[in-house]
């Protein structure tokens, strides 16, 4: 079986091209089916995310060479499966073939499997170790199964990729820590308050990152949102989006006493939240902690505010430092993750060779079974005086004999196939047993 993947990804394809080749989730299943129905593939599965579009396909025949980093510039004739898949992508999206061949990568055989394993384990992702792609791989397989495009090969390949991803997450530190400023801020909020349900957040100023942080906080249970800004319209708009209330900017000192989390991102050239404003608010909070997330540059919250008891102040640099540490830690795990992928590619490769040998093995088992039944029927017909127990004993004897006869050649064949000697071993197997 010839396993191949042709695709484009963020690694070498700009977004302007990626968006022209994009598939929506609803298109994945039918498109996979069209690879099988119209392009001669035995099985196929399309993986489409915002960062990649990849067509995995299994064609009948030998898998051929697997040159590293092969590109469609070196495609063989039109019968080459890689060329077939490039044509498929171009025609499906209505773009010139040259657009696909100019950006696509090709991997064959073990390299195709290695690529998918790396994708599923988020080693090939824009954000190293992210988890979203795992769900997308799972969904792609489900869609291909549903459309009838995925069979034994795709199931084996994609199921194993999910297994590899789980191994990488649990056996390396690649999945640990947070890699966005807003999610780090939410982690700190959890470290202070625990459950965020029922907590109140105040957002000072309106900026994209502040809004993203607030979105995370609301998703984690923050139930009351107050927005204040020098622009009342912007405050009202943001408050409406989160079901919160807008308050005049001048009321900031009084607002501080009633909230647990303050996200500040104004464009002010100087600090807008000063120690002399925060200290009286704290006195009214009776020791309840306040978490200040200052993501403005220049900073909005005076540095000395962080020295106050029960105040936890993090600015953009503090949060970014945590993100950088996480990314560095994840990079340090790349080698270990790569080794795991290598192990699993070797196992997959061995399993594929066994699958290749499977029809011959099944043919032998089936033939022996037929012979056994025929001989058993004839023998039992010649022995009419046997009781039911004795007849069962004879049948069991035939089963045991057949099993013991088959076991050594089958186990040796599988062993040979796993170790890469499939060709000669299978040839001899077929010659000897006439299958």
């Amino acid at each position, binding site marked *: 079986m010839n396993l191949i993947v042709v695709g484009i990804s963020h690694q070498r394809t700009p977004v302007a091209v990626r968006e022209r080749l994009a598939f929506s989730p609803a298109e994945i299943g039918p498109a996979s089916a069209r690879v099988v129905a119209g392009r001669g593939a035995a099985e196929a599965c399309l993986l489409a995310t915002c960062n990649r579009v990849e067509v995995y396909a299994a064609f009948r025949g030998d898998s051929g060479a697997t040159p590293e980093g092969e590109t469609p510039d070196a495609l063989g004739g039109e019968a080459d499966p890689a060329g077939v898949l490039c044509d498929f992508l171009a025609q499906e999206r209505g773009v010139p073939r040259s657009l696909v061949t100019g950006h696509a990568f090709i991997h064959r055989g073990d390299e195709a499997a290695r690529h998918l394993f790396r994708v599923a384990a988020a080693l090939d992702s824009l954000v190293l170790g992210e988890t979203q792609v795992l769900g997308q791989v799972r969904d792609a397989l489900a869609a291909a199964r549903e459309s009838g495009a995925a069979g034994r090969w795709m199931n084996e390949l994609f199921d194993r990729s999910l297994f590899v991803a789980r191994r990488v997450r649990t056996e390396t530190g690649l999945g640990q820590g947070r890699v966005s400023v807003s999610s780090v801020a939410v*982690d*700190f909020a*959890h*470290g*202070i*308050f*625990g*459950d965020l349900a029922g907590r109140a957040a105040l957002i000072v100023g309106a900026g994209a990152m502040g809004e993203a942080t607030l979105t995370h906080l609301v998703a984690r249970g923050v139930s009351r949102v107050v927005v204040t800004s020098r622009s009342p319209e912007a405050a009202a708009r943001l408050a409406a989006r989160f079901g919160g209330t807008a308050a005049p900017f001048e009321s900031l000192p009084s607002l501080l006493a009633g909230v647990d989390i303050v996200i500040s991102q104004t464009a002010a050239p100087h600090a807008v939240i000063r120690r002399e404003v925060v200290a009286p608010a704290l006195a009214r*909070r*009776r*020791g*309840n*902690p306040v978490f200040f997330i200052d993501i403005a540059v220049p900073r909005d919250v005076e540095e000395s505010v*962080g020295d106050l*008891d*029960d105040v*936890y102040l*993090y600015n953009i640099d*503090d949060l970014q*430092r945590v993100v950088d*540490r996480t990314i560095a830690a994840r990079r340090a795990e790349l080698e270990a993750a790569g080794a795991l992928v290598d192990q699993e590619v070797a196992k997959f490769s061995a399993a594929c060779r066994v699958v290749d040998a499977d029809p011959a093995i099944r043919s032998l088992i089936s033939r022996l079974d037929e012979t056994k039944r025929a001989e058993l029927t004839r023998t039992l017909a010649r022995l009419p005086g046997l009781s039911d127990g004795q007849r069962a004993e004879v049948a069991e004897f035939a089963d045991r004999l057949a099993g013991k006869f088959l076991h050594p050649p089958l186990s040796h064949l599988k062993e040979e196939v796993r170790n890469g000697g499939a060709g000669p071993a299978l040839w001899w197997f077929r010659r000897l047993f006439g299958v």
Partner: protein
Amino acid sequence: MSGGIQTVINSFPLVERALFYSGGACLLAGSIAAAVRAFAPDHLPPAVLRVAAAGGVALHGALVAARWSAEGRAPLIHGFEATLLTAVFILAVYLLFGRRSQTLDLGIFVLPLAFCLALATALLAGEVSERDLSPVSGAALTLHVGTALLAYAVLALSSAAAALYLWQSRLLKSKASSAWAGRLPPLGQTERLIFACARASFPLMTFSLAVGFSWAATAATSPLRDWLRHPKVISALALWAVSLALFGVSIRASYHGRRLAYLALLGFAGLLATLLGTHFIGAPPHADLLRP
């Protein structure tokens, strides 16, 4: 200390001595594990602390039960007995609350404390004289001391939670990279544990003092004004006042954060003074009260 152990603990039957020393060894191992966990959390899971605490409770709990059976009275009247039982209660309360609030790392403070109390038991046992061992018992006294020790244990746990709170607070404020980052329970969760301990310890303490005063009023041979001035009684009343303050704060939720943690630590200071400190400035009161 060794002389002390010879005079009292070594007079115990072999099984009881074995229980005392093996329980102590378990707590020592737990204390070492706590230190390892504190400095290298990656190398030791918190469940090890729970196992050590469970071992301490089982072995020293069995010793208390054996003493009770052998002497026909609750072994909690004399200083060394009370100290040992307090250690057992602290570990038991830790296992109960620590499991419920997922704060097993409280063991970092609780296990060394329990080990120190086991050591104090050996020290106090060494100073017990024949006179001190005179039989003092009775249901009221057992109830009084038993509930007091349980209240002490709950207060000790709230102090451990306070220490954990201050540690986490400091980590969050420092922003430094630490092996503990993200491992300690959130401040809010630890605070709820302190509140829960405050709500449990005050009723126990109040009940214990009420029973104790009622017992002393009827059984004591010394005048009321004399035993009211006893250091142990005074320190117990001071501890009750701290416990009352914690209870009030927990009911009204009127204080939070570091101030609450400091108040809980004040309770621990009062606990040490009541349980051990008075021993060094005056004799335990219960036997004294019955002496002519």
